[in-house]
């Protein structure tokens, strides 16, 4: 009975789950823009129903034997068929739930955060668009459909990052995010075409199946894997294309939370997991991914160590955690990567939402200022942010610990110890920077200017009622997320069964090695936290990090390894002054000049010919006679 109803229910339920946010988007944009409350209600309602549908599907298919696919033909060009439809398998079900869940929480949170903003309706419209694109991306059965929604995700994130379009920096950041991810997407699209040329279709199941290896030579396989990874690097802000992510902090904080946890940046890792069997066919590509993940993780962690902007710290940490996921996946730990994606979605959203509360209450992003102003008085966010930061650094009972262990276990399984040591360094750095933020914000500082804090606090009081309500609206999702962060780690086993299926019996990596890595990681995390305590936490601490005592190193980290400078220089020198100048010259001199010359020639020749047209009848007669005379001479003699 249940089986039958499940089979019939799946299609309409998936359709509802993915299409409702789109319907909400259309309704808000077309009808209810002038009524913010109704718009918000529509959007939140739609995503709540989506979450319900996603949970229902998860329950329905928790013992999924093989992927379910529904497709209808969308495009057909001779042999190439591009279907549109849904693909339901454990990975997409899990992602569906994560995305819908985080979207719902963030939207509820935004009710408080964005209250009174003139663009409230627009905000919810974009949020719905975002949710639609991301939900549809997760259930795409073909890479082309995935690509379409991938671009839609890029578009909506552009709209949301540049949401406060009156702010110049926000529009710049939006553009930067759009252009940089597009740079990666070009590579992605080329890879996609390469696959299409050799495989004849773009079905995810077929790419993951044995056909891929059969129809593509290893070289082509590696090339297309690398190209597709270009898209992942752009979207997930990996090494060469990572600089857009910190700038994307210009958007509203809930947007950052959404972008960084479950949607935009996670889309890249999701694609990696989605095509995991395909990527594993090419060991070379996997090694490259591993290297890129490692580089991004280490670079971003070092950047996070010196940033004073709370949102930027979490942004860098997102890059580094994404690098960690890529490392885990590239090391062959499919489950580890996906599990870290899941837990990261929870605690990173939590971190951003907590920071959003602080920023909303105190109007500053600077951690030291937040500390002086007494951010620790807000009990719920402080507790939540501590939980989330502990999860981020991998402290045992929290979810981050389990997923990090899984990744490290995967890395320990590799023959080359470099990756594992890099991972362990990453664990240390992560613990250091996250606890640095926590200690600076949450502990009373010796040289805090009390008067400033109290005056600000009294300034808050006269709008107490409204603030209180907003605060409570924002606090509720925090509590939910904190709970998830605490308990999610204990579901590692069931999740693993769900994702991989029963047949996998034991861990492939050696036991002794694994145990060593586990304890080492834990020790390093605690050591990082302790170090942060010594420098920022304990009474009388200097509040100066060890990096800041080394100016060259500090500059290197604070300037983000000069990657942005390099890009700016590159764009300036090569593109602006080289290629565009050349194109400009070509346009100016060759094309414009050619047309100018041509018209000038026409005018000139017209002027010359016009001399013949004197308009005098006798001249014409002379010419006529002369012609006749000469013609007769020619004909008769």
């Amino acid at each position, binding site marked *: 009975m249940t089986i039958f109803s499940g089979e019939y229910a799946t299609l309409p339920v998936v359709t509802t789950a993915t299409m409702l946010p789109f319907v909400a988007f259309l309704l808000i944009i077309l009808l209810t823009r002038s009524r913010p409350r109704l718009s918000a209600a529509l959007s939140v309602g739609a995503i709540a129903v989506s979450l319900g549908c996603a949970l229902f599907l998860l329950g329905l298919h928790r013992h999924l034997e093989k992927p379910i696919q529904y497709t209808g033909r969308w495009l057909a060009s001779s042999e190439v068929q591009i279907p549109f439809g849904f693909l339901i398998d454990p990975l997409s079900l899990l992602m569906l739930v994560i995305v819908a869940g985080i979207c719902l929480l963030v939207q509820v949170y935004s009710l408080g955060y964005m209250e009174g903003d003139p663009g409230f309706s627009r905000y919810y419209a974009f949020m719905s668009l975002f949710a639609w694109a991301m939900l549809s991306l997760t259930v795409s059965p073909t890479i082309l459909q995935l690509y379409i929604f991938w671009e839609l995700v890029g578009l909506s994130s552009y709209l949301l990052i540049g949401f406060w379009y009156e702010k110049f920096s926000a529009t710049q950041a939006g553009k930067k995010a759009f252009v940089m991810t597009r740079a990666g997407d070009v590579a992605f699209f080329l890879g996609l075409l390469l696959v299409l040329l050799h495989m004849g279709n773009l079905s995810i199941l077929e790419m993951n199946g044995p056909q891929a290896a059969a129809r593509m030579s290893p070289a082509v396989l590696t090339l297309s894997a690398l190209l597709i990874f270009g898209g992942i690097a752009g979207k997930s802000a990996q090494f060469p294309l990572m600089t857009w992510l910190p700038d994307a902090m210009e958007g509203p904080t809930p947007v950052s939370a959404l972008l960084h946890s479950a949607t935009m940046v996670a889309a890249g890792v999701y694609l990696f997991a989605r095509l995991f069997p395909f990527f594993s066919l090419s060991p070379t590509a996997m090694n490259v991914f591993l290297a890129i993940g490692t580089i991004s993780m280490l670079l971003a962690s070092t950047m996070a160590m010196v940033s004073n902007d709370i949102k930027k710290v979490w942004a860098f940490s997102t890059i580094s955690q994404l690098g960690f996921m890529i490392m885990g996946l590239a090391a062959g730990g499919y489950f580890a990567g996906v599990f870290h994606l899941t837990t990261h979605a929870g605690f990173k959203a939590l971190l951003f939402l907590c920071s959003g509360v602080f920023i909303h209450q105190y109007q500053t992003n600077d951690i030291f200022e937040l500390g002086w102003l007494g951010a620790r008085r807000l009990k719920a966010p402080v507790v939540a942010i501590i939980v989330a930061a502990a999860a981020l650094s991998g402290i045992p009972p929290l979810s981050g610990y389990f997923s990090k262990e899984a990744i490290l276990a995967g890395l320990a399984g590799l023959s080359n110890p470099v990756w594992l040591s890099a991972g362990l360094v990453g664990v240390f750095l992560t613990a250091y920077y996250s606890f640095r933020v926590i200690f600076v914000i949450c502990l009373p500082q010796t040289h805090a200017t009390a008067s400033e804090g109290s005056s600000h606090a009294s300034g808050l009081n006269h709008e107490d009622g409204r603030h209180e309500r907003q605060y409570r609206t924002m606090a509720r999702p925090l509590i939910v997320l904190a709970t998830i962060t605490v308990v999610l780690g204990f579901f590692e086993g069931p999740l693993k069964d769900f994702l991989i299926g029963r047949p996998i019996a034991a861990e492939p990596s050696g036991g002794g090695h694994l145990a060593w890595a586990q304890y080492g990681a834990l020790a390093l995390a605690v050591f990082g936290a302790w170090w942060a305590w010594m420098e920022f936490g304990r009474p009388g601490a200097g509040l100066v990090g060890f990096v800041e005592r080394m100016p060259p190193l500090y500059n290197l980290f604070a300037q983000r390894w000069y990657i942005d400078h390099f890009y700016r220089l590159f764009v300036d020198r090569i593109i602006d002054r080289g290629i565009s100048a050349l194109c400009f010259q070509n346009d100016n001199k060759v094309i414009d000049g050619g047309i100018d010359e041509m018209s000038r020639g026409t005018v000139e020749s017209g002027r010359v010919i016009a001399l013949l*047209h*004197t*308009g*005098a*009848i*006798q001249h014409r*007669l*002379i010419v006529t*006679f002369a012609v006749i005379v000469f013609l007769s001479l020619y004909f008769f003699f």
Partner: protein
Amino acid sequence: MIVPFGHVLMLAGVLFSLGMFCALARRNLIMIVLGIEIMLNAASIIFVSAALHWESLEGQAFVLFILAVAATEVSVGLAIIIYAFRRTGSFDPSTYNLLK
């Protein structure tokens, strides 16, 4: 035929040249029309003499047609000239340069 054919041809040639010179060189519209008439007459003389020379009447018939056409042409031409004179107050064709 008393007069040799060659002489007639020469006369017609001279007449034609005179007419042509008149049509091309004079600065008076009436004189230009006159020049054209002279050229027509030169052609008519050749037709008549050729009809005599080859003893065939078609040449003379042509001349009758030419005379008729010349008469109409002169009347129409003079009418145009009068109209043009009323418009511009001049017979000089070089002043008729509105189309230039």
